[in-house]
């Protein structure tokens, strides 16, 4: 069954300042969307508000996932429904190993899903967990010892991003938002991370790839590209839009917008 994330006329404020000013966007499983935009256009705000960061106040609009109002849910419930955010800046949690954290997360999600479904809880066994973990770590070319390191503590930029995709692989979301996953990666790391993402993508998984540059889109190829400028989606199109942006830069979008506004006025 396909699932859809629907964002309707979304307005988001941080500390009283409006950052997202009416965004409409629909992402279904089986689709890859890219959101491109210059710094400060609201890309991260959009992703944080989809997962429910408490500092981001939704003042207008709706976010629905699989027909349900996501905005009434806590972040952990959104995760258990099948939403995932790969952070641009993953947070360090000293003293907690990646493995033990992931096992807690897998079981927390199972707990909620069992409760909603009226099913008895089946916690993942240690053996099953470590088998899956090893498999996914292989996929991302990560050394098994990595799982015993403290979550994001002392990780290099590339390691952090890889660990984010590992978490995605273990939690198995329906819609995953990748927030600037390509930033801070060298070309080899970018290829490994992208290969991992592509391996996880399929008919039951939708991706929303947020990026400043076109780089990652050569590996993770979107069917839909949207350009976010000043809290609004200024342009939407196919993969060719990303190339045009690469060629002409974001000022070109602003010019396009200006022209169309002028055209509208004249017409």
């Amino acid at each position, binding site marked *: 069954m396909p699932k859809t994330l629907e964002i309707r006329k979304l307005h988001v404020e941080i500390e009283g300042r409006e950052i997202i000013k009416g965004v409409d966007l629909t992402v279904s499983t089986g689709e890859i969307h890219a959101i491109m935009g210059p710094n400060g256009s609201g890309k991260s705000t959009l992703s*944080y508000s989809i*997962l*429910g*960061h*408490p*500092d981001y106040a939704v003042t207008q609009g709706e976010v629905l996932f699989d027909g349900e109002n996501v905005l009434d849910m*806590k*972040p*952990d419930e*959104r*995760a*258990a429904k099948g939403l*995932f*955010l790969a*952070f641009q800046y*993953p*947070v360090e*949690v*000293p*003293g*907690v190993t990646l493995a033990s*954290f992931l096992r*807690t*997360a*897998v079981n*927390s*999600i199972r*707990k*909620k899903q069992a409760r909603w479904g009226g099913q008895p809880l089946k916690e993942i066994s240690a053996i099953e967990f470590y088998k899956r973990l090893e498999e996914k770590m292989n996929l991302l070319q990560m050394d098994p010892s990595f799982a015993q390191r*403290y*979550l994001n503590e002392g990780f290099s930029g590339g390691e952090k991003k890889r660990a984010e995709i590992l*978490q995605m692989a273990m*939690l198995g979301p329906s819609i995953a938002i990748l927030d600037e996953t390509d930033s801070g990666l060298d070309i080899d790391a970018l290829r490994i991370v992208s290969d991992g993402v592509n391996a996880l993508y399929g008919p039951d998984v939708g991706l929303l790839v947020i990026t400043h540059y076109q780089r990652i889109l050569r590996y993770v190829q979107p069917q839909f590209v949207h350009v976010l400028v000043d809290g609004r989606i200024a342009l939407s199109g196919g993969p060719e839009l990303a190339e045009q942006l690469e060629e002409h830069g974001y000022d070109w979008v602003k010019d396009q917008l200006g022209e169309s506004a002028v055209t509208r006025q004249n017409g």
Partner: protein
Amino acid sequence: MANALNFNRREGYLEKYGFHDKNSYVYRTEKGVSSRIVEEISGLKGEPEWMRNFRLRSYGIFEKKSMPGWGADLSGLRFDDLYYYVKPSDKKGRNWDEVPEKVKLTFERLGIPEAERKYLAGVEAQYDSESVYSSLKGIWEKLGVIFCSTDEALKKYPDIVRQYFGTVIPPGDNKFAALNSAVWSGGSFIYVPAGVKVEIPLQAYFRINAESAGQFERTLIIAEPGSFVHYVEGCTAPVYSTNSLHSAVVEIVVKEGARVRYTSIQNWSDNVYNLVTKRAFAYKDATMEWLDGNLGSKVTMKYPSIYLMEKGARGEVLSIAYAGNGQHQDAGGKAVHIAPYTSSRIVSKSISKGTGRSSYRGLVHVRKGAHHVKSKVRCDALLLDDRARSDTYPVMEINEDEVDIGHEATVSKVGDEQLFYLTSRGLTEEEATAVIVSGFIEPIVKQLPMEYAIELNRLIELEMEGSVG
């Protein structure tokens, strides 16, 4: 999540844990303390003259000493309102089946071994660890190790007890040490002969059969040259106490090249003033390690100390404190460098929640002549919310130039960004907080024997349950 057992420890505590059978003692002294009561205690125990005199002398000191003018608020403490000696009944006659279901469930959730559960619930008739104790006892005896209650030691090994008792912590050390010296009962006595290394940790609950741990326990450990012992006391299950003062004295002598590790995890009910004096003397090339976990209680004041008496002595204090609503944990450690070429390390981790307050209080004292001393102090505080409070009172008295002393302190608050990150991965806010806390204390917890580490983590989770958000 398991709402069937969703209790808040700080509310209805007595209802939850008040299964302590009030009629299980066979004798107790009347309320309050006096020389007559002190004599009565000594007489009931059939003690030798010297101990009787020691107690009486200590009582005199207790009467003269004033209350500490620093540290936690002790104004709620009423010496006249306490029982100072309660002789436990020989047979409790309680059956495991009679233990309330919710108590059993608590033990189960904490993952406490069956044998220990029964002891905690006051079930002694079929105390499973008796057999464990006997077989271990056989091994220890062959090695010449003595491990028994201090009362028993006074009867069986009076010379060793007399030689060391009160030498590390004299009655005049502080008011509570004096009180303990006057009315002490129970506690562990350990003697390890030269060169003997006791591989299996000695655990207090193996020992406790007839004489249960008291309010004024007295522990004495002697490690002869080149020996090793790890003593583990307490447990993470809440200890319900009708008496509101727990005042223990622990004295340890670590001789040349010996090593003693003392692990203590205590969780008192929240009416208890927990005022404990712990000190070790470490001689040439000896190593003393305190690992001290404090949960529960109304007020705890406890600063395990190490006196580094001779060249090459090393000491370490690792301390964890958790202060919940209405609690004050005033804990830390002391290192007194008397000899040159000695080293110490104090690591303190405290967690405060709600109106809880935790204080680190520590002393590093380098006496004149103790050159080439190394000492590192690190105290980290974690606040779980905006109301929680943490303070540090580090005192350094350095009377020598050629020393290497370091002090680091951090205070952190469970951050919104950490919580959002973890909850976005499916953890509830409570689970996320518990994960952050377990990571915070990990550097110390990983040094605990495994079963204690697991218990401690679960206990803290239980403490925090329903407390966040």
